């Protein structure tokens, strides 16, 4: 009973001390070799969000310390920024996209690259598949999990080396 009270007291003290941020120990699942890509198609605009663990892109997952590591991060950011070099979309769709902003998030001992690409396609109906050169650039990546939302519906699939992932079109 005594202990019980103590616990309650401690809990309420904690609650009073931390009223706003409820989830201070909320960590994201983290898996090496596992990259996610989200593709949304609406009208002529195509938006893609890519998330990749730092271990696969630059080979380390702590924050860059040496000059060498900093250079590696700079290089990776430049490589990841260009959607047209990273992804292969059907020629007929006529997609163009400018260099995107690459962010590097550090969460504890892990880091992750995150990129948001905005593309414009003259004929989005021709966007029947997507392929990537990611595996050639970063060999330790094993799978890219893709989620998509297109006019024909939502769905998920996996990008594999040398294989295009079909996208539903209406």
């Amino acid at each position, binding site marked *: 009973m005594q202990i019980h009270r103590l616990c309650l007291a401690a809990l309420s003290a904690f609650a009073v001390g931390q009223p706003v*941020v*409820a*989830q201070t120990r*909320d960590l994201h699942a983290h898996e090496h070799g596992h990259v996610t890509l*989200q593709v*949304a*198609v*609406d009208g002529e*605009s195509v*938006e893609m*969000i890519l998330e990749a663990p730092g271990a696969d892109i630059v080979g380390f997952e702590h924050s860059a310390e040496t000059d060498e590591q900093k250079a590696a991060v700079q290089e990776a950011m430049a490589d990841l920024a260009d959607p047209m070099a990273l992804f292969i979309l059907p020629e007929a769709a006529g997609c163009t996209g400018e260099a995107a902003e690459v962010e590097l998030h550090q969460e504890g001992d892990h880091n992750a690259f995150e990129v948001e690409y905005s593309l414009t396609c003259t004929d989005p109906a021709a966007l029947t598949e997507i392929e990537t050169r990611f595996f050639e650039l970063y060999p330790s990546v094993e799978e890219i999990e893709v*989620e998509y*939302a*297109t*006019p024909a*519906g*939502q*769905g*998920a699939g996996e990008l594999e080396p040398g294989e295009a992932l079909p996208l539903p079109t209406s």
Partner: protein
Amino acid sequence: MTRLRLLARLVGASLWSRRLAISLVALAVAVSTILFLSVERLRTGAWESFASTISGTDLIVGGRSGGVQLMLYSVFRIGNATNDISWESVEDIVALDDVDWIVPLSLGDSHRGYRVVATADAYFERYRYGRGLSLEIEQGARFDDLFDVVLGAEVARALDYEIGDRIVIAHGLGAAGLVRHDDLPFTVSGILARTGTPADHSLHISLEAMTAIHVDWASGARAAHTTPAEVLRARAAEGDLAPNSVTALLVGTTSRIAVFRTARAINEYPEEPLLAVLPGVALQELWSVVGTAERALAAVSAMVVLTAVVGLVATLLATLEQRRREIAVLRALGARPGIVAGLLVVESGLVALVGVLVGLLTVLAATPVAGAWLRATYGLDLPVGLSLREALVLSGIVVSAVLAGLLPAWRAYRIGLSDGLGGGG
């Protein structure tokens, strides 16, 4: 030309002389074709009906668990939520820039084994299934009074309810309904048209009604003196019965581009651990679990096709023994071995073609009838036309029959003149 005609007459006469055996082989091919097409149609129909259980909703939001689980309890009404969403969080989600509309769902009570879904009026407008179909009220109207309930088609049919019937909702999900809200009965105000979705198996009440029947349950069991229905109606009119929490939300975003951004905002919402999933993605994930049955069906249809072809070859080989004489006579009349072999190949292909066509026509004729029944009973939508895949497999049957005909043809080619005539038959 005349030679071809002669050959055709020979094939025809030879087939006619063995019409019973040959029509049985064609029948076997026809039955296999029917089986293959039916299995194939059920298979694609099952996936399409499953995938179209919910459409038009961009995100489903619930307490943090897994996407499949959230999908199961919020849409399929199977299993239970681990956590509810507090109403404050719902208000924050509504306030997100990219959120266009929400439909709250509150689950947890039941009526004679059927789930009760408490929701807002928007449910009837926003919930879509199939290719954007919305729920239709077949009889009566939506909730007007606080204690109105709208029944799914299957609930009304199975329990034989009509508009105006009074029903009591059970607290919790026990089929026996041990603890019941019998002090506050509901009146059936409307019955939904059949959809083939879990809505058929649900009872729909308003969120306020859900709060109202639990007003006296603050301690976990019903208080001795309960609040009368009239008092609750008055409180509802004053807006006093807003829910504290809901089980799940259907969310529509302003644009498709905003879907992933909104999902992220909800998944990273700091005040409460929430989960937002794309229903299309969760459905696919769920299908990969239950889809084993689909793959088993695909295996069955492959076996069916194989059986048809093997049966055809076996029959041709078996009759070959009896036809030694016929072949010998043909050879004696001057037919070259190649012609005799050709006759057998043509015969094999012809029998398969007739069998496939009979099977195909039977299925095409039966699909509309069976389809109507399946839609009414199981909500399964059968594809009507012939898919490319089906056409390919069917022509595959005919082609493999022609190829399989080569084996008896080769044997016939080797049967010498003396073989058949010398036998003394």
